């Protein structure tokens, strides 16, 4: 879907993207990274809004340096910041955006009402945008990007500034609209849960470099919650007793550590009891939860 080769983007002395190379497949892709990682810069380069200092970018099979305007016919963009005019109604604004994308008035009007219907906007769509809540403004921002039926939709921090309820609603809307309109999604965010909820693939960027590109399901599988133990003698007996209690239990044994899946606080009592039975000395016992956040932080740091 998007291929970037050795892309460098510099703003004066600051390097926003540093020899960035990535091949982004079709589907719903998340770009994760802390603030200032280079996510928005990459999105803007892929949109053709800004030029890279060097490197090559291909979007939907077309080279960006030659066809940036033609490519924009196939893509939609929802910026991070508030950028919708207050003095227009939701309907007027979407029709205008449809027409600026190249739709005729009739199609733009029809499409506007269809999208706003999917976004569950009723009579409020005829109100001035300045009267809208934060969630409604985000919906309008999303709708304007989808009005011309793009193949690919860039979403830059779509849940930014939303309360938890509005955030979940927005993610659900993105999921729903992307699925029913067969639109590929590139979601740029620093919120891990947004990627988990929406995306198939995740790309993590930090300091302008690609850190990781992985299937979200695979990444989720890497989430573990274990109790890490260091024991003295008779460790074999200790492990046997633990396995007797639950033979399906996945016990990881390394030279230094034994890791037992954490189920609940009873797991600690069970470990102490097994150690006592095996006359095995417990030196250390600690719960180690490897969450998506940990994986992300590990990659970013």
């Amino acid at each position, binding site marked *: 879907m998007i291929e970037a080769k050795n892309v460098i983007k510099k*703003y004066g002395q600051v390097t926003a993207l540093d020899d960035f190379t990535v091949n982004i497949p079709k589907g719903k892709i998340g770009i994760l990274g802390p603030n200032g990682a280079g996510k928005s810069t990459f999105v803007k380069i892929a949109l053709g809004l800004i030029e890279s200092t060097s490197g090559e970018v291909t979007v939907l099979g077309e080279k960006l340096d030659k066809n940036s305007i*033609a490519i924009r016919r196939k893509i939609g963009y929802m910026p991070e910041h508030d950028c919708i005019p207050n003095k227009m109604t939701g309907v007027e604004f979407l029709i*205008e955006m449809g027409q*600026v*994308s190249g739709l005729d008035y009739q*199609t733009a009007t029809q499409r506007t009402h269809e999208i706003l219907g*999917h976004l569950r906007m009723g009579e409020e769509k005829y109100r001035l945008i300045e009267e809208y809540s934060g969630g409604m403004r985000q919906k309008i921002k999303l709708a304007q990007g989808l009005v011309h*039926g793009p193949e690919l939709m860039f979403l830059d921090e779509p849940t930014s500034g939303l309360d938890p309820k509005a955030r979940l*609603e927005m993610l659900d809307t993105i999921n*729903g609209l992307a699925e029913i309109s067969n639109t590929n999604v590139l979601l740029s965010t620093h919120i891990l849960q947004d990627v988990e909820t929406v995306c198939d693939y995740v790309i993590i960027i930090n300091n302008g470099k690609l850190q990781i590109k992985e299937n979200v399901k695979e990444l989720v599988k890497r989430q573990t919650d274990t109790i890490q133990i260091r024991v003295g003698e008779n460790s074999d007996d200790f492990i046997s007793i633990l396995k007797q209690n639950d033979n399906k239990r996945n016990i990881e044994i390394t030279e230094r550590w034994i890791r037992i899946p954490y189920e609940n606080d009873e797991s600690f009592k069970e470990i102490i009891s097994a150690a006592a039975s095996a006359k095995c000395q417990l030196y250390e016992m600690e719960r180690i939860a490897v969450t998506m956040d940990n994986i992300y932080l590990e990659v970013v740091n």
Partner: protein
Amino acid sequence: MKSDAKIAEKFKDFTPTLDSRANIVLGMGLRGFEKLLSLKNKGTLFLIGIIYLWTFAFYLLMGEDSYPCTEVSEEITTCTHLNFYGDLQYGGTRIFLVMLAAIASSGLIANDLNDKSIHLYLSRPISRIDYLIARIIPIFLLMITVTVLPNLAIFISQFSKSGLDLNFLSDNKWTLSNLILQAIFYSISYSIIGITFSAAINRESLAAVAFFGTVYGISLIVEIFYEMMNGMDIEQADYILLLSIIHFLDIISYNIFNVDYFVTIFGSPVIIEYSFALIVGLYALLFFSFITLVNYIISQMEVTK
């Protein structure tokens, strides 16, 4: 909620036929023009009315004998239509023309910059220059409406008074083309100045005040300095008039009609002579700088957000 979504097949299989880039730009421009003429813009409509009224009233006052050209003094010849714009003493529409350009153009880019919707426009299949053209079109068409149309109306009226004599048309064919050219020249110039102020001062009302104040304020200051320099017998005094946008545009406008350029300083007409290459070169440089500045301001917006 996702499962609740009703999937309309039409929505799912939407394969749009998108217009060409040129049509998108033209469409944006025409919609902008339509907005300028909407009833919400009472100030704009009022000024348009005033310009038409003033033009026709002035035409009636001038009388048909002075048309198309007359002698102001032994050495100066001017034409009626030029007076509409060339000299406030005779014309008077120019102040309204500048006022209209200032008010109507002030929001064109300023509003997009202010609410940041410019990012959404520029993410569409148009370039930055396309966007600028689309924003110039509304004010350009508006200026054409108040320059070309009234002048044409007067020309047709003259033709009618000549008893529809075809010789009138052949005798004045250059006047007709020059009238149109002059109006286009003023329209495009004030349109570019307008969007420059609109982009540079991204507040609608401030941009309008700055446009009008700069154009008329500098003109007044320049005239005072011109008088002072003349009083001191400084030979190069004429060149100071080039600093005034109003005088500068008038100089080129007079050149279009191949008429001697004169300014009226405190009621006295004075002939000014410049080389054609100088004024055309300066005009090109000035307006290229304006467009470059607007382009730069917009490009900076793209980078910062």
